[in-house]
């Protein structure tokens, strides 16, 4: 057993290096002396605030819509469940840019619902709402799948008991099911938020990279790459630190989930 692990460990180190070498390279090349410029840079600061705002709103939308969807999915027949699960999972396997094109096709100016939306005075493409919609599209599956998985493992007898006690299904959901599910909801929300912050392909297609309006951090990094390579490196390094922080916070949450 040990010996097998011994020879396989060489491959394991190679695999790890696939992740670690690029990150190492990034941190070696970051012009640490210019980190101050990063915080002084308008592009970076504005993009930071847009990213923070849109990703938090997107996470809130995911929570508001995704938790009921997860509960619904956990309660339907297994056949309908596998259909719903497949649909929900599509954005995970889809190239994000395709998601952006799909959004344009549906709610863009010349999209299926474009006329309808403009008749009530709503224009979505190249707005901050478009950034949020793109983020919701790619982030929703992470929340729904995490929470739904937890719902399915829940002791359903507790729900039955709450019904007999006198709770309608809705009250039972809010007073019993949700309080039993906080760790999973938090873990799902953190994943969805992180995915929203990292979103690039769908939002650059549907919302564009308009500085001060729709340009988020990943878009800013991409733009900086053309005119200030060093600053792009610095910004990227900051996002790696952010990602590491998310994983660390999530690790303790996930441990809590398995303990509950």
């Amino acid at each position, binding site marked *: 057993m040990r010996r097998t692990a011994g020879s396989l460990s060489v491959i394991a180190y190679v695999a790890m290096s696939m992740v670690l070498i690029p990150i190492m390279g990034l941190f070696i090349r970051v012009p640490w002396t210019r980190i101050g410029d990063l915080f002084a840079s308008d592009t970076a600061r504005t993009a930071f605030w847009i990213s923070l705002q849109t990703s938090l709103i997107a996470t809130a939308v995911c929570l508001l819509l995704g938790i009921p969807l997860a509960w619904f999915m956990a309660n339907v027949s297994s056949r309908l469940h596998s259909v719903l699960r497949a649909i929900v999972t599509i954005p995970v396997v889809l190239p994000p840019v395709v998601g952006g094109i799909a959004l344009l096709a549906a709610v863009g100016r010349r999209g299926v619902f474009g006329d309808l939306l403009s008749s009530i005075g709503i224009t979505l493409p190249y707005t901050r709402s478009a950034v949020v919609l793109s983020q919701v599209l790619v982030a929703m599956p992470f929340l729904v799948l995490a929470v739904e998985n937890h719902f399915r493992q829940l*002791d359903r*007898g507790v729900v039955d008991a709450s019904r007999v*006690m006198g709770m309608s299904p809705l009250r039972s959901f809010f*007073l019993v099911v949700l309080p*039993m599910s906080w760790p999973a909801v938090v873990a799902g929300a953190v994943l969805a938020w992180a995915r929203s912050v990292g979103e690039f392909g769908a939002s650059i297609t549907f919302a564009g990279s308009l500085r001060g309006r729709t340009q988020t951090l990943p878009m800013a990094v991409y733009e900086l790459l053309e005119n200030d390579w060093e600053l792009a490196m610095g910004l990227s390094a900051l996002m790696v630190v952010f990602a590491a922080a998310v994983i660390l916070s999530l690790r303790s949450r996930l441990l809590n989930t398995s303990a*509950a």
Partner: protein
Amino acid sequence: MSLSIHGRVQRGNFTLDLNEEFHNGEVVAVVGPNGAGKSTLLHLVAGLVRLHEGSLVVNGMTCDAPEQDVYVQPENRSIGMMFQGLHLVPQFSSAKNVELALQARKVSRAQRAALRGSLLAQVGAGHLADRKTAGLSGGEAQRVALARALAGQPQVLLLDEPLSAIDADSREQLRLALGNVLTDFPGVVLLVSHDPTDIESLATRRLNLY
């Protein structure tokens, strides 16, 4: 009379034919081999299982009658139930678990605070109020589940193996506590049990299911 069941439950290959009337003040021991439908009978009265045909009437209110398109949801029946698996909310304290049942019956916040303590005390679990139910022993959790079942002042009390899976000493104590509760209970009690001593000391009659 306060609980009458005339009809049939059908789930896959399993059928349970019932032709029973129960009176207020009775403690009926439901006995029979595994798979005879003891738990199904309790779930039927609670509304978690539905009749295939016939009718179920609780204190004059028809709760289930498929031929007349009548089915009253579990939350709209007046039932207290102690499940075989207890099904307490493990993350909540004992007091909070009991309070949930009061909240379900729309008891005001002020009254809930007073009632949850007295309900726990009534079954000898007053000292467990602040403990999370995940950390309770089998006997302790059963007391909390009993307090929760009584909380809504139900018309019918359903007890599915309320004294199982605890050691002899606590069993004796809990049996005494349960005996006191059942003596005062005004409605019908259905008690599923395998233990002759429990049945002898708690029940007023038996219902055999085969």
